[in-house]
């Protein structure tokens, strides 16, 4: 009996299942990942160790004697304490080599290529023209982070974000099924056309593969997941559609629990 059940027939009268293609559109991290405090401290410790063990800066090469730049360098970097043999040093005798105290790490102060204490307007003007401007890193958090704007692509720069839309009932990944009247289409094209329909043509995206990355198999439907990345542009909803760009943790709150469990392994932790 059991073997009869398992026997594969040449044909079977199953119901025609609906095939749909789900787009897993993600925005990749823009900045380095947030690391735990311990890891951060480890990097800092190693960095200090590296500076401590570093060779003496060859100032005789980069700042030739007698040049203006050498003079500027000399003004900034004072000579270390002279090792006088007639003096007793209570904190240890200086070990001078090439005008550097080898007991400590060498701190080299380089002449600035920009002027300090400038007004902000001047700086802004210089920022656009000068290559030697002061480099100030942007903040890791953006306006969208502060205002909690989940529909912005500029939130959570260190994380991978996924596009989810609301069809009025629940949040889900954009899903497109083939209409019975249409001609048969490849899954990735079905997803692409659907995306342009709901999000406008102003999206430059990269389709990782024409092969789906996952299949959710149900009795009456087959849902294929197509993986792709948004490279530039914006998702502009066409028919007053609600949408969000969410991280993995946020997806677990918004998606249906069983559905999330099904696709959890496809989502990026970072």
């Amino acid at each position: 009996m059991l073997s009869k059940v398992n026997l594969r027939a040449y044909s079977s009268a199953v119901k025609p299942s609906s095939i749909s293609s789900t787009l897993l559109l993600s925005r990749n991290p823009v900045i380095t990942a947030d690391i735990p405090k311990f890891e951060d401290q480890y990097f800092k410790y190693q960095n200090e160790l590296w500076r401590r063990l570093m060779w003496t800066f060859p100032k005789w090469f980069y700042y030739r004697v007698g040049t203006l730049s050498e003079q500027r360098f000399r003004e900034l970097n004072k000579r270390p304490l002279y090792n006088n043999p007639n003096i007793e040093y209570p904190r240890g005798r200086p070990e001078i080599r090439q005008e550097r105290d080898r007991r400590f790490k060498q701190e080299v102060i380089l002449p600035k290529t920009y002027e300090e204490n400038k007004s902000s307007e001047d700086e802004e003007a210089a920022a656009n023209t000068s290559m030697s401007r002061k480099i100030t890193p942007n903040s890791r958090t953006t306006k969208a982070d502060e205002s909690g704007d989940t529909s912005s692509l500029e939130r959570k720069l260190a994380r991978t974000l996924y596009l989810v839309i609301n069809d009025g009932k629940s949040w889900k990944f954009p899903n497109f099924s083939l209409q019975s009247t249409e001609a048969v289409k490849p899954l990735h094209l079905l997803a692409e056309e659907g995306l342009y329909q709901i999000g406008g043509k102003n999206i430059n995206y990269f389709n990782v593969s024409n092969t789906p990355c996952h299949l959710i198999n149900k009795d009456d439907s087959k849902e294929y997941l197509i993986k792709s990345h948004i490279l530039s542009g914006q998702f502009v909803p066409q028919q007053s559609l609600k949408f969000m760009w969410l991280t993995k943790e946020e997806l677990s709150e918004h998606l249906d629990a069983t559905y999330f469990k099904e696709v959890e392994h496809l989502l990026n932790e970072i």
Partner: protein
Amino acid sequence: MMIKGSIRCFSSSSRALRAGYSTVEPVHHLVKIRKAALKPGYKDLLIPKNDIRAVGFKPEEICQDRVHEHYVNTIQSDMLLHFYEHDAKVIEGNKKRSWGTDSPYALYRNLKKPKGLSKPTKDIHPVTYKNIPELKSIVINAYNSDALDESWLNISTKLQLSQITNVKPKQLYNKSNVLPWKVREGKPCGAKVELTGRDMNQFLSTLTELVLPRIRTFKGIKNTSGDSNGNISFGLTSEDVKYFPEIENFQELFPNLFGFHITFKTSARTDEQARTLLSSYGFPFYNPA
């Protein structure tokens, strides 16, 4: 200190201070082994430099590695999906052939050359999670023919490479005699450097973000480049080298600049895979006319 052995010595220090010796059995009388180099005292020199026990310890993990993070978080899973092939089989390479078993003379004979080729080729395995293509190292080879005439230019070449890459380059020597080119065996002729790990990633991001976008004539890496084993190379001229920020800011220190060849060594089995990997790092490719 206790004296080993039963022979009485007048001095115990001479025995204790004697250098260690190797007990390596000779493999074959034709294989030369420099036994002096196997002295136990030299063992510490074999410890890699990023190990704290090493003699010339240099901490490597001094900050987050942006490029590696990108590879692990994004590229790796994408490549796995991108190269997925249904029912993929191992494509066998062209192997050396046996001379047959009918003759006793062929028993220990060196194997016959592969069919149609002079060199055997490796098998191409389908990409799984175990063999996702990865950038192993970058080799920068600066052969300098000017240094044949003026040997001090070797120093300039090495200095230029170390300035760009933060790694000490190796001296190159001519391997053959070509008299019209003044090439003689053993003559120093440029330098090369192999980058791995963080230095490689740093060089990679400098190249793709600062140098290549500023070269006006740069169209990309040729699609025809590659050794069909997943290693891809291209060249930079002495004009292009100027755009490295380490050199650009100290132009008066580098009056002689030299171009070089950059080879990307990847664990990809075909050039196509290697090109995909490199383009995901931001290198453009083009079809030469």
